[in-house]
């Protein structure tokens, strides 16, 4: 187990390094930030001074060296636009994004699991078929369009929910959170729902497939033969077994939820990391782009690691396998 962990950590480090190189070259090697950042009216002396101040006069490999050295000290450069450390800028926006992603994940499980369970237990019923048809829509509808429709119906036509922004926030643990206030909660419902749509469909499909498979298993027959109640068979025996794929996938999906919040945040003007990256790409604020991409890669590596470890805890077969090697 320890060996496995060390090996995984080493792999993660390598991927991180490779990604830093790709991201750095991609962002700094293509295009010229000088054109955008320095006013065209500036004279030559001003230009040179600005270029030197931003460190853009060094050859690319030295810029990368400086970047890597600083990155190891937690310094991912200063935003050209805000003139603040890029990492700090992202950290400030992170609570908003995390809140949204967690809200979406909770929604996906709370809505998806019962629906999937129902569809799995009664696959031929009208309800079960409707749920499955709905889940196909959830997969194939472009989510940005669904977001627009949510705004159109609930904010513009009905006026029930606010269309954009975060609403009132409360400061706890150094971050600002909106799910703790009534107004903030009203603001988060639509964006979280929009972000959750794809995941709800996913959870429904996974749960349904898992339930249908599990119901045919010998252990279910055996539990029935023991005279256990139907509820106990389903909620203890079947549920435990279908939870593994559901947990893995929702865990793995958490990263892509954060990535996909780029779209949701842009629609609902939610001031998180995703909106920041889109704005930064549009004005070519490179340190922020690099810092964001590095953060996301880092997050992905951590999530993959955690999911793998959770797997070993949840599924004894995996534990045995890793012991054997």
């Amino acid at each position, binding site marked *: 187990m320890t060996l496995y962990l060390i090996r995984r950590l080493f792999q993660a480090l390598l991927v991180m390094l490779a990604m830093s190189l790709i991201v750095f070259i991609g962002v700094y090697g293509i295009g010229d930030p000088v054109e955008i950042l320095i006013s065209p009216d500036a004279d030559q002396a001003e230009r040179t001074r600005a270029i030197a101040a931003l460190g853009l006069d060094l050859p690319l490999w030295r810029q990368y060296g400086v970047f890597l050295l600083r990155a190891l000290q937690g310094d991912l450069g200063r935003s050209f636009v805000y003139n603040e450390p890029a990492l700090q800028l992202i950290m400030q926006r992170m609570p908003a994004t995390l809140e949204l992603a967690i809200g979406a994940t909770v929604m996906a499980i709370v809505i998806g699991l019962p629906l999937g369970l129902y569809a799995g237990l009664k696959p031929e019923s009208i309800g079960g078929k409707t749920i499955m048809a709905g889940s196909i829509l959830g997969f194939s509808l*472009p989510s940005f*369009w669904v977001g627009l429709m949510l705004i159109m119906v609930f904010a513009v036509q009905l006026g029930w929910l606010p269309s954009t922004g975060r609403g009132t926030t409360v400061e706890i643990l150094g971050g600002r959170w909106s799910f703790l206030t009534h107004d903030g909660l009203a603001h988060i419902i639509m964006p979280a729902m929009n972000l959750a749509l794809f995941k709800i469909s996913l959870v429904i499909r996974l749960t349904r497939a898992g339930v249908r498979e599990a119901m045919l298993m010998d252990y279910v027959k055996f539990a029935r033969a023991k005279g256990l109640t139907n509820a106990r068979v389903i909620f203890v025996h079947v549920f435990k077994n279908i939870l593994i794929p559901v947990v893995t996938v929702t865990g793995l999906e958490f990263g892509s939820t954060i990535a996909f919040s780029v779209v949701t945040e842009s629609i609902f003007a939610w001031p998180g990391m995703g909106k920041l990256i889109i704005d930064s790409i549009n004005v070519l604020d490179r340190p922020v782009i690099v810092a964001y991409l590095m953060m996301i890669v880092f997050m992905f590596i951590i999530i993959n690691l955690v999911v793998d470890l959770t797997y070993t805890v949840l599924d004894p077969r995996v534990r045995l396998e890793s012991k054997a090697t």
Partner: protein
Amino acid sequence: MSAAVDPAAPRVETPLRRFISQFLESRIAVGGLVVFTIIVLLAVFAPLIAPQNPYDLFQLDIMDGRMEPGTVGGAGFTYWLGTDDQGRDMLSGIIYGLRISLMVGAGSALIAGIIGASLGMLAAYAGGKTDTLIMRLVDLQLSFPTILAALMILAFLGKGISNVVIALVVVEWAYYARTVRGSALVERRREYVEAAQCLALPTRRIIFVHLLPNCLPPLIVIGTIQVARAIALEATLSFLGLGVPITEPSLGLLIANGYEYMLSGKYWISFYPGIALLVTIVSINLVGDHLRDVLNPRLQK
């Protein structure tokens, strides 16, 4: 649909005929195919069908801007789906937008399919280190969410139709590679491959003439679904302002243009392009879903 199977013809069951008759069994899938065919025809013959050329500034009347669906414009012209802020007929805008959306979607799926299928085939046929290398790349690619990878590439390259196609190809090729490798691994152990090898045919010929046709069914299924995904992803990227340029609006960009007006109740500028996008994606998915059922040998009795 053209005449499917002539009842007078001798009932010889070729694989193609069996495929067609099985495909025709599902009414929903046939409906999807019909709708999709109509959409493709609309896009191809856009200049003949669209009431207005949305790029021709002489045909636009800024006084007709943001008119509701069904209004008759200054020149006695009925805007069935309303107009946008430039006084552009939305119906024409959508038909022309479909062109770009379909072109980008199908084009990127085709290029990604060629690259992915070749690499997948190579991985399966060569095995060993080549296989490991290619499949590692596939794993790496698939572990990143498509939207993020596409975003990253567009952040590097900037917007533009060809850059969007590049981004879509980069995020899509891995799906083809994995699928093709899977079926090619099974096929390459068959006798016909062995026979071809005994004849000392060149490897390229074995791969493309003998192996490839037998790996086609799963490739067709994944290709269909990837076209729909590519169209949706392109729309998303264009909506975010990272995709196609304003001069060549796809459906996603049309939707983005109408976004600011939606809050003031002028829904039609984004609503109708959205419906067009939706119908396109759903019809492709319906066809793809049924193709998967028909072409999956495991489901056949």
